[in-house]
């Protein structure tokens, strides 16, 4: 999956983008914590955990996306299906 866009409150959004979650970056959902939160993502070789509420602000898409985030084939958020 690739990042299409990051939404949410400006300071947290900036922090996520600074951690490398910019449009076009590959991101993998590794697992959900046993109690349901947080979720573990694999970004740029690093294992990053954030809470579901914030993960939902990261819009991702299957397949490739241009770095500008323009063509969005079938965008899916992290929210709908977290059964990994």
């Amino acid at each position: 999956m690739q990042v299409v866009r990051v939404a949410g409150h400006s300071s947290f959004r900036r922090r996520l983008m600074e951690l490398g979650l910019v449009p076009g970056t590959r991101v993998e959902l590794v697992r959900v914590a046993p109690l349901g939160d947080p979720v573990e993502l694999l970004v740029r070789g690093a294992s990053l955990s954030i809470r579901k509420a914030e993960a939902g602000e990261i819009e991702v898409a299957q397949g490739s996306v241009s770095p500008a985030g323009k063509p969005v084939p079938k965008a899916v958020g992290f929210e709908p299906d977290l059964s990994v």
Partner: protein
Amino acid sequence: MASTTTDRDPTSTSTTSSHEAAPAQPLVLLVGNPNTGKTTLFNRLTGQNARIGNYPGVTVERRSGSSRLDGNRLVEVVDLPGTYSLSARSAEEQIALWAVLGQGQYRAPDLCVFVADASQLSRNLYLALQLAELGLPLIVALNMIDEAGENPPNTAAIEQLLGVPCVALSARRGSGISALLAAMERALVEKPTPRPLVSYPPELLADAEELSASLPAALRQPASRARALALWALTSIEEDDELTEIDPGLRAATLALRRASRRDLDHEVIAARYSFIDEHLPKLYRRLDRHPRKRALSERADRIVLHPLWGFGLFMLVMLVLFQSLFSWSDPAISLIEDAFAWLQGGLTTLLPAGIFRDFVTQGLVSGVGNVLVFLPQILLLFFFIGLLEDSGYMARVAYLMDRIMKSLGLHGRAFVPMLSGFACAVPAILATRTMERQRDRLLTMLVIPLMTCSARLPVYTLIIGALFPPTRAFGFLPVQGLLMVGMYLFATVLTLLSAGVLGRTVVKGRKVPLILELPPYRLPSLRGTLKMMWERATVFLKEAGTVILACTVALWVLLSFPRAPEPAAAPPAVAASHTGSAPASAPPSSIAQSYGGRLGHAIEPALKPLGFDWKIGVGLIGAFAAREVFVATLGLVYGIDAADDDATPLRDRLRAETRADGEAAYTPLMGLSLLIFFAISCQCMSTLAAVKRETKSYRWPAFMFAYMTGLAYLLSFTVFQVGRLLGF
């Protein structure tokens, strides 16, 4: 490529260096992401002479030390707090930029060493690009090269890309350190300065240009740095940020520009940097592997460690061992310290001539030092575990597993270990809040920890429950006394959690910062780093909290011993050496009664009456401020019972027999319940307050803690006692 040739230990030559860095020593800053082994590298570079101070205005620890370079030159090395970016929203995050620029109270560095994790280059380079834009003398320390696997980054390519020297090393194994020292030495002469590398969109550059005019004059040159600072302002300054020392003109101009702009400025800045990284990253490797083997192994381990069943089983086991060690294994060492101080007291009592001076030495000074040292076993043990947990990478997993629960209380997942430690003793637990990065998280955790049922409350509970509650069984099988003990633990735990929820929404509100938790790969913990941390924490505690505890012990001794009883045999009461409060020789009940403390007990009696307490309990409460368990010894003295803390039976019987003027029993089960509740909540521990004072660097927070806990204790005890009376108990 810099290598792993024969390394010498840089510390061996620097042990003679003076502890106060002369201002003439060049300043070298270690800058880098969290979890890049900066502190390990710092320890390698500075050896035994590290000093822990504080950054101006914030409670973030500043670690500095000196290191001797090859040419026998001493440099001062400072380990900056780890950060993913220079952009900041809080005073804590601002330290990084202010320190590299030498703004405010910071001395301008002569060299920055950028510490990178060789297997996390993609993200690490983001910070490197920011440093490059500032045009500061820079070299790159490519750390953890041993973990990078068969395809390590190519240092020559990194040098070429950034235009500054790069040395590969492993701070844990100690390889590459001498090459780094040599590179530092050359860099201090040659001042290798990177150029800005990222090309930003023209409209963003125009904004930056416009904003640079609002920078303070000293920061406007050179132009490239002014542009970098303008970009920093655009991605940091906001209406509700918590930055300090920002020029008002710059703030106004930035906010105006952000408001006027319809564009996504954050995205423009950050995406431009990452597109540079994505473009050049492939050049830095020989092959583009997916991820190093280390990560794959960790991932496999995490399938068990973070498993809903096995993961929690392991978690409970680890926490059980940690708790058990604090609660029981520390006991022999604590007893040893107590015995040693009791022996010292006894020895001095026979050696010195009787009088105020002897009492001051034995009851004030010796027991004061004992009161401080008695915390060492638990502090050392707790930090031993924390060191292992942090180093191995498990602490981040603890936070990951517990975050769901801790979040609902407004606490950070990392607050779990300090909170759990609070069941043993609040003092080491408060010191352990260091493991959290944010000041708000630390403060909130610190404020609620003392509500947990620490082991010092046990002797008090045992006395009260044993004396005032019948050893009968409810419903024929439930022992009332045992039930009450369990009930007190449950009550305190629930209250702690509730308080965290309330305080987190009111007093320590702060900005809600979403969790970002990095799960580092598992590593073998380093004993060396752990021992060093134990040593550091212990010395900081002794130096800073210890002095406060000692002073309080002496003050309490004065309060409970003066004015002195006429008969010389009257021994002062116990402000005892600590956790068991060894009370000195027997005293007639009158001596403590007429002391200032005794008078204070009388004076506060009207306030305590509605709670069901008399002045004797009042004196006990005053004595208990030294440490809760001293309540038993002090109450013993009030009743003229010797060594009540060693065998509480006579005191227990005495409490049962105590009658009021009308012949009714003075102490009823209802009063007992009220007293239990008071002890559960009130902040009766000067050592806890001293620890909070040390960690928050203020008197405000310990004062607040004392007020809220004691106020709440009063309120609840009052309610229980009065409602109980109305109900006819």
